[in-house]
């Protein structure tokens, strides 16, 4: 079975899709040198400067141009370098890409992948560290994907490129070098969660890098006799309610853990949905665990205070189970 890094998994898929479909092309800053994180390395040589278009620093024009090129039937993959920078292009993403199909009465589609590397990456500070996935889940017309493993980055990117909808594809910067088994290159459907670890006492729902913190927490809880079930949502829109409900019906307890700010985070949506649907089956209050509502600090000790760590997740699980 192949072992790949998270970055290489995406690159393998992208190259494969570009070979398969000449309408797939990439547009973004720093692509000419293989991407700011090396996630496009080798692609400029293989596909040339038109299909791997090295763009000026012009996020709005990049995304707007991609919308135009997508509406005319090509399949652009846009690189924004950092989710933070993509905010310069939010108008084109939210007002144009997400709305075109609806406001034009279904006459067009916008098959577009917007890669927005997200998350804390040691001391990257307030403008290069944010996790803004919940913003996009609020926007009808967008698909939101947050892969946690190399296998998922391979399969979900494939589905994203083949999707006819605009997909906000958020890879976690801290995961680029993560190695993992990639059994196949099959597309992974949107809206199907992954049970990262099975358990019976408490459900921990998460996505992106926090899935690994949750799994680590579950391992340490197991040594205390608490079996936590870890669910990796993989995609936040659409999200797999059925898998979450099934797990919480079994455990009666839910923690939603994510790196982004807790206030208004997608954890609130998951928590409210579960509390509403399974009120009578809960053994404890539904809990959320996210970053405090503070800009991300530069100094490592401060930055660490914002992190949702395995210890914090385990502590919360322990409290819930003891209630």
């Amino acid at each position, binding site marked *: 079975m192949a072992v790949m890094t998270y970055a290489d998994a995406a690159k393998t898929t992208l190259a494969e899709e570009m070979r398969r479909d000449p309408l797939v092309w990439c547009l973004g800053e720093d692509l000419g040198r293989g991407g700011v994180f090396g996630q496009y390395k080798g692609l400029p040589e293989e596909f040339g400067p038109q299909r791997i278009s090295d763009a000026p620093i*012009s996020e709005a*024009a990049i995304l707007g141009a991609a919308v135009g*090129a997508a509406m005319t039937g090509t399949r652009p993959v846009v690189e924004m370098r950092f989710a933070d920078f993509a905010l310069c292009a939010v108008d084109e993403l939210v007002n144009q890409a997400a709305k075109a199909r609806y406001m*034009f*009465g279904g006459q067009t589609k916008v098959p577009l992948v917007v890669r927005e590397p997200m998350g804390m990456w040691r001391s990257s500070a307030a403008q290069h560290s944010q996790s803004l996935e919940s913003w996009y889940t609020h926007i009808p017309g967008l698909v939101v994907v947050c892969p946690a493993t190399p296998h998922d980055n391979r399969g979900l990117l494939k589905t994203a490129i083949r999707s006819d909808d605009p997909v906000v594809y958020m890879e976690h910067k801290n995961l680029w070098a993560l190695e993992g088994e990639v059994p196949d290159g099959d597309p992974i459907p949107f809206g199907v969660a992954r049970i990262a670890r099975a358990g019976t006492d408490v459900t921990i729902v998460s996505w992106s890098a926090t899935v690994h913190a949750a799994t680590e927490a579950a391992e340490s809880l197991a040594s205390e006799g608490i079996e936590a079930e870890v669910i990796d949502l993989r995609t936040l829109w659409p999200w797999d309610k059925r898998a979450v409900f099934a797990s919480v019906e079994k455990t009666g307890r839910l923690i939603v853990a994510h790196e982004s700010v807790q206030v208004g985070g997608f954890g609130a949506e998951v928590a409210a949905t579960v509390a509403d649907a399974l009120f009578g089956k809960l053994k404890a209050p539904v809990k959320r665990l996210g970053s405090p509502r503070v800009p991300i600090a530069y100094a490592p000790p401060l930055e660490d205070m914002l992190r949702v760590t395995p210890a914090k997740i385990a502590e919360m699980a322990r409290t819930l189970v003891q209630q």
Partner: protein
Amino acid sequence: MRNRTGRATRQMTQGETMARAATKSPSRASSATSATKRSTRSTKTAKATADVPSNEALVGYYKQMLVIRRFEEKAGQLYGMGLIGGFCHLYIGQEAVVVGMQAAIGEGDTVVTSYRDHGHMLACGMEARGVMAELTGRIGGYSKGKGGSMHMFSREKNFFGGHGIVGAQVPIGTGLGFRHKYQKTDRVSLTYLGDGAVNQGQVYESFNMAALWKLPVIFIIENNKYGMGTSVQRAAAGPSLAERGHAYGIPGEEVDGMSVLAVKAAGEKAVKHCRAGKGPFILEMKTYRYRGHSMSDPAKYRTKEELNKMRQEHDPIDNLRRVLMEQGVAEDALKKVDREIKDLITDAADFAQQSPEPDPSELWTDILVDA
């Protein structure tokens, strides 16, 4: 296209055919018609062209401009009657710009614009019925009543919207140009923007990108003198909007946007430039809108005298009508055209009131393709 098959917009189609025929075989005459004006510095002039289109083609332009004028007048009426809501930006006064540009392009060239878009859609050959029914929010509208005045689209007619954020369509038009080049076609992207949009940052990102990659994009700045209520003199620095691409090496010209023939001549030159692979081109159309920015704007920021002077001395339709009479086109023929258009617009307005409102289930459709 749903709900719009086989409907009566024959007049528009004929006009379109005439315009197309005219671009293929212009009659050669020698009188100079271009009213393009040289802008300062390195931007170049659209030199007076020697080509005067045939009478048939001229009647076609007249017809298309009058369709837009009457359509917009009717839309204004329906708005006043409460049948159209929200924002509604009328194109009255600016008709020569889109009609002249459409006469300069061919099959497969694409058009994108912002929200003053009814004229662009009609000039692209979209049906008056479908556009009007969208204004009234009915299922027979181009967007099934879900888009309204600012948001219509037709893949078939190569019209890519219909966008409501000032300047946001400019990168999209740049992307359309990218696609034309990517697909190795010689098609061009007509990307319209107003004098208000020229101060948006993404316009310059687009200029740079289009120039850098030599994309076939004609940026058509419709300078109607007012960005909502702000005169261009108060909002835009520099002597000429046509020069706004100077730093990127994009040639630009000022054009008399009240003359369909001047627009067509300038458009043909820009199209030739783009098709030759020389990159983008900027045309600043000096035009004028007779109505307020939108229906709710009483336009108190300008004088009645200014408006009346434009209407009396520079009206694009009256101007062309005069040319037609000089060319010996019979008044009866023009009256017949007027009547046909009246019928077309009445039919569109009737359709727009009879077409049902969208079913509540439509609220949930067309959000995502896959999910």
